């Protein structure tokens, strides 16, 4: 008899009965795995996040991230591990310190090619307009009762950039990390749905038929780049300088992105560093980022109305960002002779390179000769800088 009682106490049955909402969380974890595995939505992030959710809600497994409190912030790593297990050890040493997002940005930089942006530099400007979703949702979130810091973290979803969203949330509202990261990556995966949806609401067929290559022939203006290798090395350094002077708080993100890009563009003499940044380091960081972000999503932290509002707000932020980029192009087209396809604006939100591919497909549907992928990439990549800068502004004012 006593053995049976011991047996029962060892299992999670007791705690499951006490917190039935945990079952819902397990289903949510399973759903995220389904999205990542079967639907192919951002599997590199959604699979670890989904699995992390399941681990975190395996009651008694000590794999759920506990909310930060004054005590934990002063504990040594050994004490955290002893009192709260390895998931909290990983969360508090890698995420709560803000370490992993810049590390991942270094890897993203090491995989980014600024060539398309350089070749159509003017289009980079439209990466600015597409940040409007961030700030307008910030306003709206204040209206429905979020604090300033929470509202900023919610708005940054509209930056359509995972590491930027996570970094900002860690700095401003770490208790919302789970739902915000989920929303950011889910909507990035849904860009093939969101962009056509917003484009349909905001543009005419005539606009979508603007052929970028023909415009280039009609109004030739672009300078040829004689020495692309040198330009690719100097350009990120120049961007870094501008960002460092104007928004220094964006330096940890933008700086690491540009460092990763630099060791890529230098070539064979720093190939070892490039390989590490874009390979082992990035992949390892992705695994632990995903698992720990999932680990924050315990029932008590996730199942509340804030989460629902984040899901809704994030969607609005995405749509506004896309629309912002589109309307910026429209305004440009009123004044300029050389027209730009509004799809170029739509990709300004980032979600590289998915947004560009989607824009390209939409364009080809309206004019099978209108290959605008390279043009879209220009505003697409500049949108990464744009939202990192926006994040810097928010962190600088609110943290």
């Amino acid at each position, binding site marked *: 008899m006593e053995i049976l009682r011991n047996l029962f106490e060892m299992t999670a049955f007791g705690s499951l009965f006490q917190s039935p909402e945990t079952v819902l969380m397990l289903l949510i974890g399973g759903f995220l795995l389904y999205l990542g595995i079967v639907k192919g939505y951002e599997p590199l992030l959604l699979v670890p996040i989904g699995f992390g959710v399941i681990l975190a809600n395996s009651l008694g497994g000590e794999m759920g991230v506990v909310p930060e409190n004054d005590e934990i912030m002063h504990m040594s790593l050994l004490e955290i591990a002893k009192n709260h297990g390895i998931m909290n050890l990983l969360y508090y040493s890698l995420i709560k310190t803000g370490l992993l997002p810049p590390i991942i940005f270094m890897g993203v930089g090491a995989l980014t090619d600024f060539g398309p942006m350089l070749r159509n530099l003017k289009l980079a400007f439209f990466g*600015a307009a597409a940040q409007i979703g961030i700030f307008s949702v910030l306003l709206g979130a204040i209206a429905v009762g979020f604090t300033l810091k929470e509202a900023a973290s919610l708005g940054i979803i509209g930056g359509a950039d995972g590491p930027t969203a996570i970094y900002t949330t860690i700095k401003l509202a770490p208790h919302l990390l789970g739902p915000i990261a989920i929303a950011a990556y889910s909507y990035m995966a849904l860009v093939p749905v969101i962009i056509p949806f917003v484009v349909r609401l905001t543009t005419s067929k005539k606009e979508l038929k603007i052929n970028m290559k023909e415009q280039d022939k009609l109004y030739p203006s672009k300078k040829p780049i004689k020495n692309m290798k040198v330009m690719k090395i100097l350009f990120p350094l120049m961007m870094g300088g501008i960002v460092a002077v104007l928004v220094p708080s964006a330096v940890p993100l933008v700086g690491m992105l540009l460092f990763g890009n630099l060791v890529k563009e230098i070539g064979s003499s720093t190939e070892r560093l490039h390989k590490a940044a874009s390979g082992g380091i990035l992949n390892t960081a992705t695994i632990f980022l995903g698992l720990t972000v999932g680990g924050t999503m315990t029932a008590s932290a996730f199942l509340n109305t804030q989460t629902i509002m984040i899901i809704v707000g994030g969607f609005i932020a995405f749509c506004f960002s896309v629309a912002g980029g589109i309307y910026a192009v429209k305004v440009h087209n009123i004044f300029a002779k050389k027209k730009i396809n509004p799809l170029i604006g739509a990709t300004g939100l980032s979600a590289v390179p998915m947004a560009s591919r989607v824009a390209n497909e939409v364009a080809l549907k309206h004019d099978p000769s209108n290959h605008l992928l390279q043009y879209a990439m220009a505003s697409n990549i500049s949108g990464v800088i744009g939202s990192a800068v926006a994040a810097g502004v928010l962190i600088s004012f609110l943290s």
Partner: protein
Amino acid sequence: MNEGFSTALMLLAVGMITVFTILALIVIVGNILISLVNKFIPETKIRAVVKAATLGAIDPRKMAAIVSAVDIVTEGKAKVTSITKAE
């Protein structure tokens, strides 16, 4: 309106101004940079040769040969990322 809302409005203004300023600067300074590089460094001067004290590094010329061979065989679809010298 409350305090938070006015701060949010200020952030909207400051944020969008900053983002526009920075990307405008990137476009402008970037174009200046292109002109300067076109004028002063029209051809590549970066030395491809690794001069570093990389222990046991492979001869760069041999490496170039291998890389180009792989390039031909794979029609540019693959790229050699590391070669370790055999003893």
